C-alpha cells in the first residue's frame, strides 16, 4: 500500500488520485494505466484497498475536514464492509472549500447503479475494466486549478455516461448557466443533493415513466398504421381510431 502523508509534494499540473479498490489486480491495472508514459506523468496515484482506509487517508474518520492533498478519488463500487457508494456519500458530505471529485468504477453496467451514483454527486461513472481511453475522463473531472482542458472537455457525467450507455442522463438537469467546470460542478452538486434528498424514489420511477410514454406512442403509431391498412373497411378498428 502506497498511502503517503497528507502533504504530498507534486509538480504543478500533476493530479493526485486516491485509488480505492479491494481487488489487487484491478488496483495494479489502474495504477499502471495512470502512470504509463502515455499519460505523460500527469497522475500521482495513491492506492488503498478499502473504503475505510480511504476515509482514514482523507481524515474523514476523525471528523476533521483537514485540507487533503488529493485532487480526485477513483473508487470501486463493490467492496466489502463499506461500498464505494458509501464512500462517495461521505466525501460529498464534507463541507470543504475545495470539494473533491469522485469517480466510481464498477464491473456492472447497471443504469440504476449509475444514476444512483450520479445522484449522490459522483462526477463520473466508469464501467470496468479500466482502459486508457477512460483516462481522459479522469482529466476532465480534475479540480487542479487553471488546467486547460484538452480536446474539448465534455461535461463529465452527462456526455461520458451517455456515450457509454447510449441513453440520455435521466436525472441530473442541465445547468446551462455555469460555464466553468467548477461552477458547473458546484451547480450540479447542489441540485443533485436536493434531488437526492427529496426525490430518490421519483428518480427510480422516471425510467419507467419514460418507457410507458414511449410504449404509448408506439401503440398510437401502430394503431394509425393498422387503421390505414384496413381503411378498406374493418368497422371495429375504425371505431377505435375515430
Amino acid at each position, binding site marked *: 500500500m502506497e498511502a503517503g502523508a497528507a502533504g504530498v509534494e507534486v509538480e504543478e499540473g500533476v493530479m493526485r488520485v486516491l485509488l480505492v479498490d479491494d*481487488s*489487487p*489486480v*484491478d488496483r*495494479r*491495472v489502474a495504477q*499502471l*494505466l495512470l*502512470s*504509463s*508514459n*502515455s499519460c505523460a506523468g500527469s497522475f500521482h496515484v495513491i492506492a488503498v484497498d478499502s473504503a475505510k482506509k480511504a476515509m482514514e487517508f482523507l481524515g474523514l474518520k476523525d471528523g476533521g475536514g483537514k485540507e487533503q492533498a488529493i485532487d480526485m478519488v477513483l473508487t470501486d463500487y*463493490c467492496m*466489502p464492509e463499506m461500498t464505494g457508494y458509501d464512500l462517495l456519500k461521505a466525501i460529498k458530505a464534507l463541507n470543504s472549500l475545495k470539494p473533491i471529485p469522485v469517480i466510481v468504477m464498477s*464491473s456492472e453496467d447497471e443504469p440504476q447503479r449509475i444514476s444512483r451514483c450520479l445522484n449522490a454527486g459522483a462526477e463520473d461513472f466508469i464501467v*470496468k*475494466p*479500466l*482502459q*486508457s481511453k477512460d483516462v481522459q475522463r479522469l482529466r476532465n473531472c480534475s479540480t487542479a486549478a487553471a488546467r486547460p482542458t484538452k480536446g474539448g472537455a465534455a461535461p463529465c457525467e452527462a456526455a461520458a455516461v451517455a456515450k457509454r450507455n447510449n441513453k440520455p442522463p435521466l436525472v441530473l438537469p442541465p445547468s446551462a448557466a455555469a460555464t466553468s467546470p467548477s461552477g458547473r460542478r458546484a451547480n450540479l452538486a447542489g441540485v443533485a443533493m436536493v434531488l437526492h434528498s427529496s426525490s430518490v424514489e421519483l428518480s427510480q420511477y422516471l425510467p419507467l415513466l419514460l418507457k410507458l410514454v414511449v410504449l404509448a406512442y408506439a401503440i398510437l403509431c401502430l394503431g394509425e398504421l393498422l387503421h390505414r391498412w384496413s381503411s378498406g373497411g374493418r368497422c371495429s378498428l375504425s371505431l377505435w381510431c375515430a
Partner: protein
Amino acid sequence: MAAAALREQLNALLSSMFASGLVDDQFQQLQMLQEDGGTPGFVAEVVTLFCDDADRIISELAALLEQPIVDFDKVDAYVHQLKGSSASVGAQKVKFTCMQFRQLCQDKNRDGCIMALAVVRNEFYDLRNKFQTMLQLEQQIQAQQ
C-alpha cells in the same frame, strides 16, 4: 535459441491465445501499454497478480462448495471477484465461465456450481500455463538482447 526464433514462438503462442478466445482485447491493450508506455514488466506483474488471486479464489470456492450447506452469497461474492479480475486482465474464457457461474449461484444450484468450478479451474490452469510459457519466452528473448 536465436532471439528471432524465440520471438516467432512467442508470437505464435500469443496468436493462438487470441484466436482461441482465451484472452481478449483488454489483454492486448495491456500489452500495448507496456510497449508504448515504457513500463517494462507491466504485463508480467499483472498476470502474476491475477494468477495468485485466481488461485486463492478457486481454493476458497472449493472449500465453500464442500460444505454440507452451501453459502451461495459467499460463493457469488468470490465468483464476482474472479470475474472482475479476469476482465481487468483480459482473461476472456475465465470471465465468461464466471458469468455463467454467477447465474448458477443465484439459482442456488449446487451441482451446477460444482461443475462450473471444475470448468473455471481447468480454464484457469490452461491460461496459467500459457502465461507462464509466454513469460519464459519473454525472459529468454530479453536475455538474448
